[in-house]
């Protein structure tokens, strides 16, 4: 497992913007090749889809131009209890080292067809961090570009005045990213295929 911080956007040229992007990047951590054996997790998803059919496993979520773009599911519909416990324990371990956080909520699962998606997941949670784990198919290494946008207060004493800074990183299967829960993420799939179970599944939850 390798750890990186996210790469700032290339197109930002102004020094102040650079500084903001650096700050944003320093709050996004990427753990490459996160699980030792990601394929047993993937195999359970593929097996479930093969056995029950896609529509029984994931439900259409957000739509783009009338076509479902994001499919959502909860882990208990797909995975065994044990494999989820193991995943969560690994996420907690990474969060403890990186963020001094030791709690991880059970993830929601999303799958994407194609194109670019802004997937807004802010709510009134008290958890300060989020995680996203990316799981691709066994064969091939599909990748996804993730942009994390963070809003920060310009003046500490005036919370109402904020500006947005972004960090972008390219993730592949079996990568985990950790970032501030106040951020908004957008994901752009680079996979060429429209077949859902060949694409990246994203596991997303809270950390504190």
């Amino acid at each position, binding site marked *: 497992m390798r750890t990186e911080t996210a790469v700032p956007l290339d197109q930002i040229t102004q020094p102040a913007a650079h500084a903001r992007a650096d700050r944003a990047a320093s709050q996004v951590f990427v753990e490459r090749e996160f699980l030792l054996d990601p394929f047993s997790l993937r195999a359970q998803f593929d097996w479930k889809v093969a056995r029950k059919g896609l529509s029984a496993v994931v439900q259409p979520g957000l739509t783009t131009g009338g076509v479902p773009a994001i499919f959502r599911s909860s882990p*208990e*519909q797909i995975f065994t*209890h044990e494999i*989820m*416990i193991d995943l*969560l*324990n690994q996420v*907690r371990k990474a969060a403890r080292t990186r963020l001094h956080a*030791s*709690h*991880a*909520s*059970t993830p929601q699962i999303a799958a994407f067809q194609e194109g670019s998606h802004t997937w807004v997941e802010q709510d*009134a*949670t*008290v*958890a300060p961090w989020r995680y996203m784990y990316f799981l691709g198919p066994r064969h091939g290494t599909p990748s996804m570009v993730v942009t994390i946008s963070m809003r920060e207060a310009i003046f500490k004493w005036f919370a109402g005045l904020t500006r947005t800074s972004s960090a972008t990183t390219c993730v592949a299967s079996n990568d985990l990213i950790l970032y501030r829960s106040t951020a908004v993420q957008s994901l752009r799939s680079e996979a060429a295929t429209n077949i859902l179970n060949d694409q990246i599944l994203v596991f997303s939850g*809270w950390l*504190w």
Partner: protein
Amino acid sequence: MGLLEAPLVEEALPSCEFFPVGLDRAKRTLSFARIGPEIYNSAAFLVPRQADMGKKAYIFNIDDLLLHARRNPWPTARIHYILISAFCCSTLLARYLDQLGTVLVLKEPGIIAQLGILKHAHSDLTPNLERSEWKEMATLSLNLMSRVFPAQQSVIAKPSDFGNLLGEDLLMHDLRSRILLLSVPLRTFILSVLKSPRRRNWVRGRAKFWHKNVARTFGLEDVNLARMNDAARSAYIWIVTNCLWMALRRHAYDGRVLTMNGDFISANPSAALHTLLSFFDIQVQNEDIQRVVESDASSHHSKRPSEKYSAEDRSLDLSDWERSYGREASEAVEWARTFAAGVGLGIGEGPFAELSRAHAN
């Protein structure tokens, strides 16, 4: 119980139909059984192996529960505790309280015992993290104990003797809570153990546990359990229990701790209930207490409700046990007097050890 997918967290957390039965610290899961009021009422022990708690276990990630509890805290009823020495008529007392109908009685909830054991167990976490993790599990679990059915206003939890490991934590968790310490004189305790092979087995296991986990804290490690008979082991457990209660008795927490002789419950249940309910601030009518005392609880065995058993039967039993095991018990009491004096406790005829001046201040 088989494993099944869990219902939604928001469905399970506010409802006391989902009763927590097992904490797994390594997996960070909490499992629940789904039980109705009749099981709360009929079970002598709220643990899956001892009560009909259904075949399904609903297992949740503890962090999901913590997150939901933070965002949507549920109203908690006032909860009081009965901490016991074991073999002190506590199940009989719980049966009486069950009959009131306005109080949810939790008889030996396994989760409180587990919290007690976990408090002394060690994981690979740092001591600080371990402590804070334990504390949040304890807060969650005790809040889960404080849910009631619509007709009920408060909860009385009677954990097993492992609950004695949590005394002060229970008072700190909810400032409205009060604790009854329930015990019997040492001699009665020993005789109650010796009469039954099952209880003798229990004593052997418990003595080992206390010796391994808490004896050093109180200076009670200097015994050779392997060379002690069951009577002496029983006396050892009774002394450990009194040491665990020492802080509660010493500080008394502004009148939030009451002590009671378990024999009082079988001898004069009406007076015992009046004293206890007034201490717990639970409003009842005299007629309610009369009804409860005249119910089947008085005339049937508290752990085996199908068997007839009364206060007179218990008194006859005690005389029988005295005849059969009196000499063994006397020797154990003598040994206990010397041993307890070493840690500043006196043993008289009463249900509790006498605190020395040093302990009392």
